[in-house]
């Protein structure tokens, strides 16, 4: 077991002939993923590292049975690429593309809901379950199979933390990078239950950031629903207050969204909160011991 992906995941890479698409196709295959198809309109018939390229997702799915998509298509075309994937029957899309306008993401998110599809991202590193499959761009080198679940809003900070977990001799069950854009397809409250239900996960590491209220909502959820031990870290305790949305943004949050608010909420829900990322592996080990898992 793992979360969202497993050995049956058949990966489609949308935008496979671009630089990122090609590089990460190779990396996903090296990780052990079944990358079965790629698409780039107009480049059907080519191959990338042995993976057949199609003009449309419909053909790719019909020919190869792809059931998850990793989207590298540039921002102006990402919305269309996602719609194409969903209409072709894809129910899991990892959107790596950054700089997608949030108005486009609103359409994508609500269309995904309508069609019963799941978006991870955008602007995210994706999902990896060591020994099973990777859909996304998290470096292969940070992983080792194990029983720590990781869910994060960050990119490289996730690599850092996952790598730290490996360095102390532990491993990961599944790691999901949700992305930190204003509108994300999957937030902590969506993803935490998957880890709760995953029999291969003993402890959950949750990596948040200042801004938004996703961590506060996660704390609310954890308070009521979660039994597994959780270690959290919130990046940006020292950062100057963000002003991204101006006054109207501030009023939505009304005092939420700061590091203090998030830490307080998580601690109130019984979560062990690390002050610095390098404290996480130690806390994970400690919780595993407390819960008799090690």
């Amino acid at each position: 077991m793992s979360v969202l992906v497993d050995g049956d995941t058949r990966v489609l890479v949308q935008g496979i002939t671009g630089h990122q698409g090609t590089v990460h196709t190779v990396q996903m295959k090296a990780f052990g993923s079944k990358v079965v198809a790629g698409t780039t309109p107009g480049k059907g018939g080519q191959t990338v590292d042995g993976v057949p390229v199609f003009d449309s997702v419909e053909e790719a799915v019909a020919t190869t049975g792809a059931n998850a998509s990793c989207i590298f298509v540039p921002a102006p075309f990402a919305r269309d690429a996602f719609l194409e994937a969903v209409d072709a029957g894809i129910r899991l899309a990892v959107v790596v593309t950054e700089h997608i306008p949030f108005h486009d993401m609103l359409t994508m998110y609500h269309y995904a809901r309508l069609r019963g599809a799941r978006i991870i991202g955008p602007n995210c590193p994706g999902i990896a379950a060591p020994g099973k499959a990777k859909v996304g761009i998290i470096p292969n080198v940070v992983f080792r199979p194990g029983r720590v679940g990781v869910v994060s809003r960050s990119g490289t900070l996730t690599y850092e933390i996952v790598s730290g977990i490996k360095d102390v001799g532990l491993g990961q069950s599944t790691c999901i990078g949700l992305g930190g854009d204003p509108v994300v397809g999957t937030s902590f409250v969506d993803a935490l239950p998957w880890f709760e239900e995953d029999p291969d996960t003993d402890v959950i590491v949750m990596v948040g950031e200042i801004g938004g209220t996703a961590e506060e909502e996660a704390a609310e959820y954890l308070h009521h629903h979660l039994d597994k031990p959780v270690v959290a870290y919130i990046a940006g305790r020292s950062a100057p207050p963000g002003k991204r949305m101006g006054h109207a943004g501030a009023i939505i949050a009304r005092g939420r969204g700061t590091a203090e608010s998030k830490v307080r909420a998580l601690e109130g829900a019984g979560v062990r909160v690390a002050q610095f990322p390098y404290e996480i592996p130690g806390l994970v080990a400690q919780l595993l011991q407390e819960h008799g898992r090690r």
Partner: protein
Amino acid sequence: MVKLAEWRGKEIFRKNGIPLPRGRVIRSPEEARAAAESGDVPLPCVVKAQVLAGGRGKGGAVRFANSPAEAEAAARAILGTEFKGETVREVLLEEKLPIAKEFYVSLTLDRSARLPLLMVSAQGGVEIENVAEEAILRLPIHPFIGLAAYERRKAARQLGVAGPTAKALESLLDRLWWVFQKEDAELVEINPLALVGDGLVALDAKVIVEDDATFRHPEYADIRDDRTPLEEVAREEGIAFVQLDGNIGVIANGAGLTMATLDVLQKFGGRPGVFLDLGGTDDPSKVTQAFLLMARAKPASVFLNIFGGVTRCDTVARGLVDAMKQVPEGERFPLVARIRGNNETEGIAILRSAGVISLRELEESARAAVASAGGRP
């Protein structure tokens, strides 16, 4: 995020049929006089500095004029001055209207619900943060539906308006929703929205459009008045550049890692002065560019913290060593470089042999960066 000046926001409003006071944007005192003399702007009028910062009223950046001469004088008094760090280059002249009441309306994004949010309050003219929760109506708008008629009626009830004023509000909200979508806005705010007779007039216009949507809006590409030259260069390279008040330069890739780096630095007493976030990339040429950009900010020391995903660490290290050589002798600074990922041992070796402090752990690296900055006051 592109914040539009009031007059630009109002231009968009005007094109979309949102009622405004009669007015004109002017760039010289003489233009102000002419606008008042010609009747383009009826008297008495309001003279407003076009700056992005708030608090213009209290800060003397809004004045009144009863004659063309007064309009000219007011414009002269404001134009070219500094207001909270911004130079006043434009002034908006507008007729002064008999205001019966001031309301608040805005459209923005509710991140948690993943829905646009309409906010309406009968308490306008003050900052919305200072309005009590219960005095604000929040209506989530489904993007597939838009602002439904029943929601517009509800907004009218919230403002306590009926009859032609309610109709005016409903029409205005419809247009505001259109602007929000069509302009790829993060925020459209009218505060105050004034009741004048039984009609409604937008006295202010705050429009913030999305950076990411400029591919649909080339017209916003050159509205960048509020950046320093270094920030402008960084933006063109796709690098987030933020100026703080300390002396250590920080370069990292990814917002989370950058923030974590700042957190750790501060723990050890370091004061970050500038930070550059490369985004998720570890492209060696971008790392090098960022390093050279950082050099121009003249930091006391630089802490570079890169997690490599795609590129090998030795490649990044070599690029960095080359870049160091491009910094003029007298402007060099201590560098602590932490590069992790593939081939990190080789990378560390290359950096060390070039005299760079290169450590594996974040904690010890941060300590070293703080120490090296302290060595140069």
